[in-house]
């Protein structure tokens, strides 16, 4: 064995910290040349509040994308789960009921996708284009097409409310810490468990995984169920943030979530990706949006900038891969 060439090592560092670097640059630019509020405690809090819903779902999406799958219906799943959670909570159920039932709803949705992909052998892209409508329909039906007001459900609101003065030491809302803890757990699963390595193997080369005795079908089913579970948690956070279970909420979130994962360094052809990268990807997008809002940049320009950043991220990623 020879020691790594400096070029290869540099490439490795870049691919590990590239997204983080991008986040710092974007944030730094807004801070230096724009409204300093983005660096204030309130600015930080607002960024976290806006990131948690996307970020938690992006953790689950990382599993799916690493396994070379995709879930376009995650926004609908989030909406459905937010309706389920709000309905139960408003009906007087406590967290010990709401949490498991909402998780179950998300995982059943994931299982359904997984069964279609694995046993009916449908392409994930098309399958989830279908479930995108089905789950949205279920959400609308369940909520009678009306948002369910959950402003008063304190134990849910707590997660993404502004911090009360006696909890200022937390720095960011508890939901932010929850997201980080979930990401740490998910990272451990992906990197240090047999299951996690099997997810990478299936995504990188399904035939090889099969040859090596990996239970490919089971891995895929589990991956979509994990995606569903994180969509459920994301739905709970949506209720916490908006104070309502909204059957029309989270529309278009799937694109933000997938973009987060890709900005974070994952490859849509599978086998590559990291959970923390995805979180950073989600933060990059929120920082751009918050920064634009704080600096009075209008909605149309904001969208153009966000889109350009996504394209740029993919481009940088390609150059990086070619370099190393």
């Amino acid at each position, binding site marked *: 064995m020879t020691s790594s060439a400096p*070029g290869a090592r540099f490439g490795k560092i870049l691919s590990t910290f590239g997204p983080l670097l991008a986040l710092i640059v974007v944030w730094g630019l807004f801070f230096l040349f724009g409204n300093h509020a983005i660096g204030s405690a309130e600015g930080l809090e607002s960024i976290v509040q806006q990131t948690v819903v996307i970020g938690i779902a992006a953790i689950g999406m990382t599993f799916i994308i690493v396994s070379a799958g995709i879930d376009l219906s995650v926004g609908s799943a989030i909406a459905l789960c937010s309706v389920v959670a709000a309905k139960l909570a408003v009906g007087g159920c406590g967290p010990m009921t709401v949490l498991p039932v909402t998780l179950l709803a998300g995982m059943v949705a994931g299982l359904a996708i997984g069964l279609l992909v694995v046993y009916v052998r449908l392409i994930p892209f098309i399958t989830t284009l279908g479930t995108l409508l089905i789950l949205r329909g279920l959400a609308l039906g369940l909520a009678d097409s009306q948002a369910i007001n959950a402003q008063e459900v304190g134990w849910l609101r707590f997660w993404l409310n502004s911090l009360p003065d006696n909890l200022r030491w937390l720095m960011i809302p508890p939901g932010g810490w929850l997201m980080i803890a979930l990401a740490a757990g998910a990272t451990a699963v992906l990197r240090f468990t047999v299951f996690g390595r099997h997810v990478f193997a299936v995504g990188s080369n399904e035939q090889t995984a099969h040859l090596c005795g990996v239970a490919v079908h089971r891995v895929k089913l589990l991956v979509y169920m994990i995606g569903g579970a994180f969509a459920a948690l994301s739905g709970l956070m949506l209720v916490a943030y908006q104070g309502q279970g909204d059957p029309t909420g989270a529309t278009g979130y799937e694109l933000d979530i997938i973009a987060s994962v890709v900005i974070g360094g994952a490859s849509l052809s599978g086998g590559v990706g990291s959970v923390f990268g995805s979180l950073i990807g989600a933060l990059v997008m929120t920082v751009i949006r918050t920064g634009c809002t704080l600096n009075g940049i209008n909605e149309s320009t904001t969208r153009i900038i966000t889109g350009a950043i996504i394209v740029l991220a993919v481009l940088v990623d390609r150059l990086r891969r070619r370099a190393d």
Partner: protein
Amino acid sequence: MVAGLSSEQRLEMRAIRKSFGAQAALDGVSLSVAPGEVHALVGENGAGKSTLMKVLSGAHQPDGGEMTLDGRPYAPADPHEARRRGVGMIYQELSIAPHLTVAENIFLGLEPRRGLLLDCAALRARAADTLRGLGHAGIDVDAAAGTLSISQQQIVEIARSLAMGCRVIVFDEPTSSLAQEDVAQLFKLIDSLAARGLAIIYISHFLEEVRRLSSRLTVLRDGRSVATHRTTEVTDAQIVTEMVGRSVAELYPRTPHRPGEALLAAEIPGRGALTVRRGEVVGLCGLVGAGRTEFLRALFGLDRTAASVRVGAFTLPAGTRVRWLRHVGMVSENRKEEGLALALGIADNVCLPSLRQLGRGGFISPAQRSAHTTRWIEDLGIRCQDPDQPIGRLSGGNQQKAAFARLLEADCDLLLLDEPTRGIDIAAKAKIYQVIDRLVTDPVRPRAVLMVSSYLPELLGVCDRIAVVRRGQLGPLRAVADISSEALMREATLS
């Protein structure tokens, strides 16, 4: 160099150098090819053949040296310019657009036009002309290219090079995916291209092919052109010695094998049965497509069949997982598509079937994973940077060693090897033969090996017993001492 001499050559490469970082991939390569000549380029994997061809085709720019084409300086900035100057490449992996028609493929990028419109009639007529010129008028110019056989697709690619007016055509191991009769066709075609005055560079592992086609050959080793010979004036042994840098006297270790109790007893209804004992190597030979691979895959539970497979005292149900658990492992013939996950690291690939032994409760210890992998990297001499280096970056021989290491890591008792030395260099082959020998002669736990190979000398050199597979049927097992390669060939090709 005499000016008159160099102008006789169509293409000259002189003292080409190319480095990647600190590593010199090419360190002084000279090669020339004259019009009407087939010049063969031989060398082990990693000797620099592909880098040289990338320099020639403009994919890489050389750090030093010079190239001339018909006496004029030639320094293509990209593959497109190389083609425009008349240098075409036929790669192992074909670059056909499967959904376009044959005619569209041949004239891709050079479509005849009438004003703004595509001149379909001219396109088809000229494509048909080109194919006729190649002696393959039978190929339908309107067929979607993806529906053609591999050998026909190759002809379409050659036609494309001709349509572009290429004067130099490089063939990079063009026979690796062809059946025997298609190979003969291709050789005739290459002969006729040379007869037309094209300059051909032919890259191959197979010395027989080099002998059949080329008038001169150049040996490449460690990024240098070691020697150029007239093909008729050099022996195989000399070429091999120059390729390896030392003589390979004992490629096949001939330690006496002592077969013990039967380990594998398998029967596939309607196709045959066989047993493999501990301490022996059993070979399956036959023509490509005769069903050797299918037999092995059925034993390994990769394809659904009615095979009954007993390993030791256990009858194994379908599925690959249970086989790894029972210490049965397989090396796939298709390293890139099935054998390895190319984007993942060496450790991930080597440890994939046996991840559970690297930790507890479903968790993996990264330290153990690295340690286990490093052990095989050292044992097999896998050349790499570190255990997490993406396996796709290694040379073919090193990839194959890693695919083999997977079976060692899983501590396999029974090794099913499908073309275990396909497309790898001689040094790596020697290593794999050596490890096979070591495994079956293990004093404590002799392993059993069942291998498929298309290369008869290899089977005769490594195996104790050999059976022929013909039209899906497994023939009788015979001791290797009682058979000759001629007899095996006769049995395999007998109709």
